[in-house]
């Protein structure tokens, strides 16, 4: 069953200069997919367009079979889309619980407290100090809060934009361990990541984006050999693939 599909998606900040230039792919329910590519390839712009934060100029996005192209981000969340931006992904002036309470508003009233408790149990670092201001959390803890917030509404698809960016190696391991646990719950996971090795270890399938176009789509096993990926990133093979 298809969780998310993109058909010839074009997106960016200026219609005359699209960053995402006609990308198509399908993600099955429960699949864990990573999106790789060199800097400036359009990975973040693409998932932001899917999440309703960047304008799409053409093509279609289907979520669970429903056309959600161009819908506002808050409407997409209500339709089962979870998105964790790379930076500024929590409200630092609100407490941990308040961050979760905002997301919980989308749930039926009787389920809210239970889901917040479940998230605080799932992330003990957060559960031990629910009233603390989120701004006081470390980088890794912030990513956990962002993930907890996105998971709270039990999305069909969870997309994360470079969750390991700017974190120390120890925190990166912590974040990927969290993502592994999330993936094991059956959530469809789409991960944009620069940490290629960690992303390949976590996911089943990799998409490689080069210059706004899909240059590769296949199982992660094929990419563990860094040479192939290097060629894709550096251009030779990417040029052939895009052509």
């Amino acid at each position, binding site marked *: 069953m298809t969780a998310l599909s993109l058909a010839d998606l074009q997106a960016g900040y200026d219609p005359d200069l699209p960053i995402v230039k006609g990308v198509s792919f399908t993600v099955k329910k429960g699949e864990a997919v990573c999106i790789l590519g060199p800097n400036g390839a359009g990975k973040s712009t693409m998932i932001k367009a899917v999440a309703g934060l960047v304008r799409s100029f053409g093509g279609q996005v289907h979520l669970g079979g429903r056309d959600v192209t161009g819908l506002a*981000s808050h409407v997409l*969340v209500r339709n089962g889309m979870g998105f964790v931006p790379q930076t500024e992904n929590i409200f630092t002036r609100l407490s941990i619980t308040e961050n979760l309470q905002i*997301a919980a508003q989308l749930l039926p009233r009787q389920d809210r407290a239970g889901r917040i408790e479940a998230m605080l149990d799932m992330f003990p670092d957060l559960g031990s100090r629910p009233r603390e201001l989120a701004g006081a959390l470390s980088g890794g803890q912030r990513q956990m809060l962002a993930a907890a917030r996105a998971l709270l509404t039990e999305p069909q698809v969870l997309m994360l934009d470079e969750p390991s960016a700017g974190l120390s190696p120890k925190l990166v391991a912590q974040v990927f361990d969290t993502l592994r646990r999330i993936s094991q719950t059956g959530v469809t996971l789409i991960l944009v990541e620069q940490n290629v090795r960690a992303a390949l270890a976590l996911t089943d399938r990799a998409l490689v984006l080069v210059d706004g176009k899909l240059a590769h789509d296949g199982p992660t096993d094929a990419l563990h050999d860094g040479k192939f990926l290097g060629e894709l990133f550096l251009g030779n093979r990417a040029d052939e693939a895009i052509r």
Partner: protein
Amino acid sequence: MNPQAIIDGLISGSTIGLGAIGLTLTYSILRFANFTHGDFLAWGAYLTLTVAGVLGGLAAGLGAPVYPFSFGWGLPLAMFGGVVLTVALTLGLDRILFGRLRARGADAIIVVMASFGASMALRSLLEFIFTAKPAYFTKALQIAKPLGLGMRATPDQLLMIGLTALLVLALHLLVTRSATGRAMRAVSENPGLAGVYGVDVDKVIRVTWIIGASMACIAGVMAGLLVQIRPYMGFDLLLPLFSAAILGGIGSIPGAMLGGLIIGLAEAFAVQIVGAEWRAAISFIILVLVLMLRPQGLFGQREA
């Protein structure tokens, strides 16, 4: 020094504080300095006066003063109507002006200039409809009653202070304890992220206008009841409103109220110490001092 300045300062500070609440909310959530806010006060007062006139025509008894106040039941009823109409005015202005600029992604300075133009248009329209001649909710005279320690106040004035305290408490609880308030604080910090959290940002903006316009209308009625109603009454309050909002810290409701009270008290004491001609300068001096010494205000948070 005459202790009466404390009461005078609290009374004018209440009006400034209520007005500043709307301004600080608009500033923190819509991210622009709204110059039309002063005119919302004046429009609120005139719309309430108009509704009071209609109600008085329908039932003459509503205008008869209710002891110990200078006004009858018609005024609170009319104020309710005035609030509804002021809210409609602000939502209409947002729809035809500010909302369109937001949708186009206009720079803050463009929106500020637009609000400046809208402010002049609103003020001129008031003058055109109602003329520049002062108007009054009531012409009944009230004797100020002694409160002790050399201070005196009329029942109307005490009611205004009490009403202000209740409104500020209610708004503070709304913003800090309710889901609506959490959503407002979230949009204030990062509107894009609020959408990702599932918050309907447009709805939060409408709620902000509704709260701001309601407070502006009530502040306008208070100013009109205690002094007089003039098309320029809101414009004259604009500098104290901005000073109070910035002194309290942008986005903070208790801060705006406390800022209003500090401005009101400073003005009242300045009148006694250096003369009434310096009253208008006080807000400006406080604004400059705050911007130089503590730009985030008393309760504001420093930008990261």
